[in-house]
């Protein structure tokens, strides 16, 4: 799971190091970091854009520890965190237009198709496709419902995560 953060640091030496220190210690991975000293907020502080990677629990702990260190978090992921959802569709997805399927899924608010794998069978209606979807945190339940309805309308057997 990835998490985009915007932190607010004082323009004082050592601030950035203090902010990053607990992240590695707690087991999260820093994917990107954008630190521009010349872009300042109205209050004279420096916004730092971070992308972290780790499992949900680790990222939660990281957020807590940042807050405990009195570092301001301006933004969490624009909307918060992302989750991924894997689903398998059995049915003739080629007949049902692959592009259309992806487009329809992407049109659901806060949803992005991140990966798609196809496995063709001798009988086209038995072909299987695995779709990995990224969605905003907390949307999984309603997304599963959306995918179920989508599969039903196309005549696919939908196999969702537990």
């Amino acid at each position, binding site marked *: 799971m990835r998490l985009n953060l915007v932190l607010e640091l004082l323009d004082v030496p050592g601030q950035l190091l203090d902010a990053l220190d607990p992240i590695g210690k707690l087991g999260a991975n820093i994917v990107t970091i954008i630190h521009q000293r010349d872009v300042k907020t109205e209050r004279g502080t420096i916004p730092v854009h971070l992308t972290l990677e780790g499992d949900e629990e680790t990222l939660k702990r990281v957020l807590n520890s940042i807050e405990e260190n009195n570092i301001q978090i301006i933004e969490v992921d624009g909307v918060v965190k992302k989750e991924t959802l*894997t*689903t*398998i569709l*059995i049915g003739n997805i080629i007949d049902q237009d692959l592009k259309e399927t992806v487009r329809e899924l992407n049109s659901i608010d806060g949803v992005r198709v991140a990966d798609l*794998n196809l*496995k*063709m*069978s001798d009988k086209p209606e*038995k*072909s*299987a*496709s*695995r779709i*990995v979807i990224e969605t905003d945190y907390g949307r999984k339940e309603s997304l599963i419902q959306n995918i179920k309805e989508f599969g039903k309308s196309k005549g696919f*057997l939908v*196999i*969702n*995560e*537990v």
Partner: protein
Amino acid sequence: MKLCIVGFGAVGGGVLKVISMKREMLKEKYGLDIDVVAVTDRSGAAINPDGLDIELLINTKEKTGKISEYPEYGVPDVKSQKVLEDVDYDCLVEVTPTNIDDGEPAKTHMLSAMNNGKDVVTSNKGPLSLCFSELVNTSKSNKTYFKYEASVGGAMPIINFAHETLAGNNITSVLGILNGTTNYILSRMANEGSSYEQTLNEAQELGIAETDPTQDVEGIDAACKIVILANSVLNRDVTIRDVHMEGISKITPESIELAKKEGFLIKLIGEASYNNLEVSPRLVREGSPFAVDGTLNVATLMTDLADDVTVVGKGAGSIETASAILSDIISIWNARS
């Protein structure tokens, strides 16, 4: 304690074997002396108010296939219902085959026993998944005990576990693999890469799947159990008609392979919660509690205090199912004495 056992198939036979195996222990540990006063099957009944010989019951059934051939006390062509009306007993053990259309004749057997003030223990899913509240209310209004642990998950403890061990918890949902046959087929397909039809044939040859596998592979059996759990554990008033059902017959080796590459297995999962009743193939993580192989059953109960609790056990088998029935009989005995 006088038992009347209605139905002498695999489960009925298992109950008799278990009673015979545990006779001394039951006396010593619980002061429970079981007399089987009547056993019925399609051929009729064997009835003795002073108690039948259990070994002789098992032998008679094995040799002749008919309980009415029981020496001296065999009664051919008598209906189970008539036996229940005429014989004096304390507890009915209803183990006739499950009938998912109208729950009969088990439903009538149970209701009449309850109305006569008798306790009832059953493994029969039919009446439970069609008219759960009627049965429970009839039992309550007659102040009798009604226990059905064996109806869900065979030997895997779940109903009494939820009511007794997890007492005080608010249980919000139950998720599980509740059918051993489909789990066997899906496990084999995942391990061997074989097709559904091929694997079903193999399971039938091994006696794991029935000649007509519809109830198992189309999710009907698992749906019955979901209904029982929804009623009993979640206090919902629902029947089998409220369950969304999707079986495993459309699962292909290709889909299993795709799932595996992402670290998932496909399992037939039953889900009972306040807003969902469903049996369908789902993706479960490899290495998670649901990744059980073979005919095993597994269920996770989501609770407010204890968090998630998972139980695993053998979902079928005559002795295993009889173990659940025996524990119900003992708990009724303990409550009554």
